[in-house]
């Protein structure tokens, strides 16, 4: 039987390390493109202030990027370490986008990030700009492939279970890449990253403006951030809506939980703005807006939205069908030439995952009792209220950012950048808010998919490695300890960098070395021996 403590701890560890990693990723995504914008302006206008801005934001970017790399490598290996059955079961599909991410994206990003920092004096202006572009493109391609992988977990297309190898195998690679869930998630996620970068730059620029320091640089940065941020905020909300729309196609349970909607609503469904649970956990007091729910999720007035209770009933049917599939699978495993069992399995394989939900209660799934089936069906409901509230926090912030950046954009276009102190202070204090929205978003995506690690295919508890509780206690405590220490150091260093402000010159000449830029150039001639 599966040790549920190990499963729970594995889930905590994955959630903690993934959400921690995702503190740094969105800033990398957003800041890299803002640096691209600033450096492009520098190359086009030749004005030194833009290079100074690129360098200053680049220094903060560097600290953030180091944290992203440090925590990203853990992600790559954790699937095998903690989720080994998952790795076996879906590795044939899931491994490919991860490997392609390395090939196409992370190699590019990681190779050129070094030149971004060390290449200023070794490359032409345009050459360095190209390097900055490649770094930013690499970061964004990374996001694309990671979200192709995650999109498949939400909507496992282009694949089929193979009873001979006991795993899911790819049948249509293009379907995996062009998975509509993956595409919507990609644009939604990178937009959130751009928004995060924009708030970061705008907030620190506002701090400079309030204090009257580095005003020229801060004003220019604020203009870039305000326009970039407005575009990002619009995109993140529109594409978030797209995510909501595609989620209803594939993850009706997630939507029902987000809306705390226990009973099927007649079309067009209302949208619940606020609600509080009654003693049964179902919504008691609530404020609803008619029609809006149906519009967002089905984009129609005539399609009903299924409620949680109805979806649980549907799950019961699929579990029963999954038991038949499981029985057929056992027969195929015992005798590979059993054509009858293969015919049954071919018809039912899509419900096998629902059958596996019963593994929590008994090993011989095919003999489950009605009571166990009911329990397994009830397990398909994720935690409703945490989802309900995080969704509203995320959405509320999303709409707030549209208004906020629209205001900033308007004021910036009028040239009113540093005139309104309360707005500047508000902007300073908004600094941590994009991370709240972003982490809420991941929580919704992943917690909302529970009890599945791959929707409808593989239950989370069934996917974990056969580790001991001690293994997990050790790894979780070390990660938490090390990550906490590093986070504190990172924040202190970033504060120091902001306090020190932008450097006036790129290269500070050492004494008696007037020709310092020349000296920093590579000694090209006579390199017979390595670098001598």
């Amino acid at each position: 039987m599966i040790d549920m403590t190990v499963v729970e701890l594995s889930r905590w560890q994955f959630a903690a390390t993934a959400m921690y990693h995702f503190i740094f990723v969105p800033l990398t995504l957003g800041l890299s493109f803002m640096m691209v914008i600033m450096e492009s302006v520098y190359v086009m206008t030749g004005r030194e202030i833009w290079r100074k801005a690129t360098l200053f934001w680049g220094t903060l970017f560097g600290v953030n990027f180091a944290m992203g790399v440090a925590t990203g490598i853990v992600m790559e290996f954790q699937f095998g370490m903690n989720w080994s059955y998952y790795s076996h079961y879906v590795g044939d599909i899931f491994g490919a986008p991860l490997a392609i991410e390395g090939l196409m994206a992370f190699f590019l990003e990681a190779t050129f990030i070094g030149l971004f920092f060390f290449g200023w004096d070794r490359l032409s202006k345009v050459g360095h700009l190209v390097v900055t572009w490649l770094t930013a493109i690499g970061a964004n391609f990374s996001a694309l492939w990671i979200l192709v992988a995650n999109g498949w977990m939400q909507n496992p297309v282009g694949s089929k279970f193979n009873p001979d190898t006991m795993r899911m195998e790819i049948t249509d690679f293009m379907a995996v890449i062009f998975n509509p869930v993956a595409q919507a998630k990609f644009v939604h996620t990178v937009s959130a990253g751009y928004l995060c970068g924009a708030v970061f730059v705008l907030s620190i620029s506002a701090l400079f403006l309030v204090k009257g320091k580095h005003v020229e640089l801060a004003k220019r940065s604020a203009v870039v951030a305000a326009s970039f941020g407005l575009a990002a905020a619009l995109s993140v909300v529109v594409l978030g809506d797209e995510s909501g729309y595609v989620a209803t196609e594939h993850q009706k349970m997630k939507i029902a939980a987000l809306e705390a909607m226990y009973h099927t609503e007649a079309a067009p469904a209302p949208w619940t703005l606020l609600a509080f649970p009654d003693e049964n956990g179902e919504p008691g007091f609530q404020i609803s807006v008619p029609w809006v729910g149906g519009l967002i999720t089905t984009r129609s007035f005539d399609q009903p939205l299924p409620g949680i209770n109805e979806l649980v009933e549907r799950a019961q049917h699929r579990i029963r069908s999954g038991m038949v599939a499981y029985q057929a699978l056992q027969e195929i495993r015992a005798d590979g030439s059993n054509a009858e069992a293969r015919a049954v399995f071919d018809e039912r394989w899509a419900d096998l995952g629902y059958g596996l939900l019963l593994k929590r209660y008994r090993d011989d799934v095919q003999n489950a009792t009605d009571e166990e089936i009911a329990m397994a069906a009830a397990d398909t409901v994720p935690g409703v209220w945490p989802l309900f509230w995080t969704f509203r926090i995320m959405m509320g912030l999303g709409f707030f950012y549209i208004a906020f950046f629209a205001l900033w954009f308007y004021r910036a276009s009028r040239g009113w950048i540093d005139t309104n102190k309360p707005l500047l202070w508000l902007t300073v204090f908004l600094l941590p808010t994009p991370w709240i929205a972003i982490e809420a978003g991941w929580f919704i995506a992943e917690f909302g998919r529970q009890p599945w690690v791959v929707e409808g295919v593989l239950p989370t508890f069934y996917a974990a490695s056969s580790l001991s509780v001690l293994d997990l206690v050790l790894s979780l405590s070390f990660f938490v300890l090390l990550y906490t220490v590093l986070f504190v150091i990172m924040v202190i260093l970033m504060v120091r960098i902001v306090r020190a402000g932008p450097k006036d010159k790129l290269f500070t000449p050492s004494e008696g070395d007037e020709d310092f830029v020349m000296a920093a150039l590579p000694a090209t001639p006579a390199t017979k021996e390595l670098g001598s």
Partner: protein
Amino acid sequence: MSTIPLDYETLRLIWWLLLGVLMIGFAIMGGRDLGVGTLLPFVARTDEERRILLNLIGPTWEGNQVWLILGGGAIFAAFPPLYAVSFSGFYLAMLVILLALILRPVGFKFRGKVEDPRWRATWDWGLFIGGFVPSLIMGVAVGNVLLGAPFHIDDTMRMFYTGNFFQLLMPFALLAGLVSVGMIATLGATLIVGRTDGMLAERARRYGIWSGLATLVLFALGGVWVAVMNGYVVTSVIDPNAPINPLAKTVELVQGGWLRNYGTYPWMIAAPVIGLLGVAVAVLGLQRGLKWTAYLAAAAGIFGIVATAGVSIFPFFLPSSTMPNAGLTLWDASSSHLTLFVMLLATGFFLPIIVLYTAWVFRVMRGPVTGQNLGKNPNAY
């Protein structure tokens, strides 16, 4: 499946080779930086010397480490059961490697941002751990692969590991770990000798010679050890085109079993020969002051040593000591035919591009690193 132009067997073999390329790629490219990290506190004594070393590898180490990340991704994509079994089986060892590797990016970035000598010394040790510990444990892991890992698989392909962390530290495995540290430190030393001067280069030269000699002796000793210890031999016929099922074969323990391949395929002897020659020439090159020769020979030595481990255990990836039949081979632990083909296309397209732009970046960053040109770049470590 008829649309896939290469048969399953060929693709599995190609992926075995590609995995070798990626492992060797990391051992050499990443090894440079791990080696410099390992030597950092010993070769460089002053803050300036240490900064020279950090700025020597600083511009390119991040790209080099992607060989490891790509290696992990490639195992996941091309050989998922291997990824599942090895990473969860060696769980705590992997944890230690990860914790050590985490110290590297932050070490580089954080160290130079504060002037305090204690702060810098702390990160110097952090960077040492980030270089030494992964080098050691990856070697120990290879040693344990040759010994066989205590795992078994059930009919649902769920794997159970029955060993513990301290059982990994067997004498033979520790020997393999030291070979790994030795070859990586030798490569790091040749890099330092090639791109710096003065006392720094001189100390690196001495460390490089000693670690090279130690690598030679330990690697040769490992060869003798392998001849007398048990290796795993597949005793049934595996259909190289069949769907994966590790339990379908039979495996036996045979004394000197890991040397059998050299009888069947005599050309494989080239691997250990290149390993020994490479390291030997690196030592000679360091002695004679032939910087390029030493550097390239040390890299060739790593190529030979890693390849030796790979060809010796062919067709195995990871034998099992407690359920030998469950040992994973390239024939019964791969992805599906289609995934192997698609991934081959992706790798065939991107890997040459990666090599090209990496070469360009190395070219841009070439040249000596000295104390004089450190102070000028605010981004320097």
